[in-house]
């Protein structure tokens, strides 16, 4: 029984190590494969890409919410909760806000469509942009 417990504990320890260390090992493998890369510039690029990714995520969340608001206003009109005048005023306001969000998202896109330089780590796609 003691041997069995020791084996299970050993396997558990190994699994924990493998699970936790996988990202660190992957990062080290990449570093080993591209010794000439400038760490500072890589980090700057990573920070910029990450910041842009955050902004994009925020804008996309706001955009989805705005679309939902437009649908909700339409449903409120159809179910008699909004008058036509109020609906027109609200709808045009929402659409203007949606346009502003789309413009801001579009402004981000040219940078993100670059085929190279976007990856946080050389040889690996940027997971932030994959999302």
């Amino acid at each position, binding site marked *: *029984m*003691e041997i069995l*417990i020791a084996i*299970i*504990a050993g396997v*558990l*320890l190994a*699994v*924990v190590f493998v*699970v*936790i*260390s*996988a*990202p*660190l090992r*992957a*990062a080290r493998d990449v570093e080993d494969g591209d010794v000439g890369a400038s760490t500072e510039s890589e*980090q700057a690029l*990573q*920070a910029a890409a*990450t910041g842009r*990714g*955050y902004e994009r*995520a*925020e804008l996309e*969340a*706001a955009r*989805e*919410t705005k*679309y*939902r*608001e*437009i*649908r*909700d*206003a339409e*449903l*409120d009109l*159809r*179910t*008699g*909760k*909004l*008058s036509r005048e*109020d609906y027109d005023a*609200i*709808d*045009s306001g929402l*659409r*203007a806000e*949606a*346009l502003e969000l*789309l413009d801001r998202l579009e402004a981000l896109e040219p940078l993100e469509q670059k085929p190279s330089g976007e990856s*946080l780590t050389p040889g690996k796609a940027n*997971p*932030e942009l*994959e*999302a």
Partner: protein
Amino acid sequence: MADLGRICLPLALLVCVYGIGASIYGARTGRIEFSDSGRRSVYALAIVLTVAFGVLELAFLRNDFAFNTVADTSSRTTPTFYRAAAVWSSQEGSLLLWAWLLSLWSSLALFLVRRRMRDVAAYATAILLGFGAFFISLMIFYASPFSTTSPAPAEGVGLDPLLRFPTMMIHPPMLYSGYTLCTIPLAFGMGALLARRVDADWIKAIRRFAFAAWLFLGIGILLGARWSYSELGWGGYWGWDAVENASLMPWLTGTAFLHSLMIQEKRGMLKVWNVSLVLATGTLAIMGTFLVRSGILNSIHAFGGATLGVPFVALIGVLIAGSIYLVVSRRDMLRSQHRLDSLLSREAIFLGNNIVLVALCFVIFWGTYFPLISEAFTGTEASVGPPWFDRYTVPLALLLVLLSGIGPVIAWRRATLANARRNFAVPLLSALATLIVLLAAGVAHKAFAIAMFCCAAFVLGSISQEFFRGTRARRAMAGEALPVALVALVRRNRRRYGGYVVHLGIAVLFVGVAASSSFQHAVEQRLPVGGSTHVGKYTVRYVRPTATITPKNDAVHTGSTLNIGAVLDVSKGGRHVATLSPSEGFYDSGEPAQGTVGHLIGGQAVSHISMSAGVTRDVWTAIAPDISTPALQRIVSIGNRTLPADEGVVALGVLAREYLKHPPAAQFHFIVSPLVMWIWIGGLIVLGGGLIAIWPAPSAVRRRVAMRSRARTARGLARA
């Protein structure tokens, strides 16, 4: 096997400590690999705690009484189902369940946001692992589920008979899931504040988990109420017990948050309020856990006399201080982007609903912690009872139900009086018709109940109108058949219509509460065989006694050694309505000092109620049989003196026969409660509505909807 469990706990703590460090380092330096490693620590924690939980579960199923917790809460005579679920009936096992569920839910949440909000998620990971480390430390230093005794006792004490009830076994995992899920929005809220990213994205990420926490807590609370009603032998479903209240408080603030987050999503308002609600909900969830475990307040549900109070107080102190610091220090970022357009808008109603919910929470908080507050100020512990709670919560509940009917018929941003008049016509007419019917029925003396029925009718009117108008609009737009249009309407607007169904369920639930508490008839009476009594319009007659000694033959198979009860005939106006069989189970005390026979029935006696449940009323009965008569006690003492240890059950057989031959009068408790079943039906409607609201839209549908919206937006913009 205990050794494996003992290895798992320090390993889990190590994983937590590493994960906290890696996540914070990753968040502060932007090194994604460390943030990822921290996140994966949560997965690893889930793996380790799954093994630990498996070890303990196996110990219970194998009757391994070397484990102290198994010996204390299980026995060979405990039925297998209850043995499997007995893991969380002990302090130690429930701590492990808490930590395990936390690791599983946290893993799911972090997996779903693994490619988003890396900075917020990294801080959230550290906080969630902090909770994990706290509970694991409690198990290592205070209450280990893997402590053992050698040599192992031959038999365990057995599961508390009060817990041998199916819903009671499901209730803790539901409640703990709710509590642990409450910590996820808290962790992300704190993460957003720490990362200074308090916009729409974090709200979007945690919305589903906040809803899931609300749903699980709600199910847990309802199961607890059902257990109280069906098992505790007092005939009530809510007693304003400290532990019951502790689970209700985060549910109330969570409900407030689910409403106000919509205002933040749509209008960029109430950011301080929302983040405060999230933090309060998570902290209240931890306080609920603290109440159960500290033994600081008396409760039938608490693991009293424990030593976990100080660590919990420290954790709660850190949470409160940290929350206040974060909100105050980030107040500039939490400014609202808009103001209320109109007081006649859904936002304004939601605000009103938030105030009522928080007021309810405050009242319950004050009443629950009043014993501690009074002791701190006066030196004597005073407590408040159900009448105190009812005085404040009933009017607030009325207001809440009313608001849940007003909200759905008012538009976002602004509504005109003309529209409001048109939209309120049907709900007001429903309420008015209900009032007339009730007054005609002669129940004018129950003002609060009448008000609740009218409010519920108002909600029913408003929700029905919403479904009708929505379906009609959908039919006009798409030309679909009525059922297809209804399903399509709900599918396309799950949150809105799921929410409406929840409102309806809450109204139905409160109708059940109001009716059963206002129009209940209760009688406690001692009856001989053949005797009868009147309960409301019902007559109950004691037909004959029952007695069984084989554990597997007890009515609900709870493992009692002796089960004594009665067959009752219930009639109304001379017509037979139901035959009921309440009983009381006697359990083995495990104390040999009580004698060969005495110990078999010397444990806790538990009432097994019997009821005839219906949509209009429940007839509820419980019995407290008298086995202390000289004739029955003589059998016990002779058995104690003459029978060997393994033949005590023979005397129980004689005792049962004697009881059946010369049954003494028994004490009965009869209750006729109208509409109780609607509490459970209301709960199921709430659950159904919650599932509709939380169910993710198929990605294809989501894309199509988004594309149509984009096309419409573009068309509109082109026109502008």
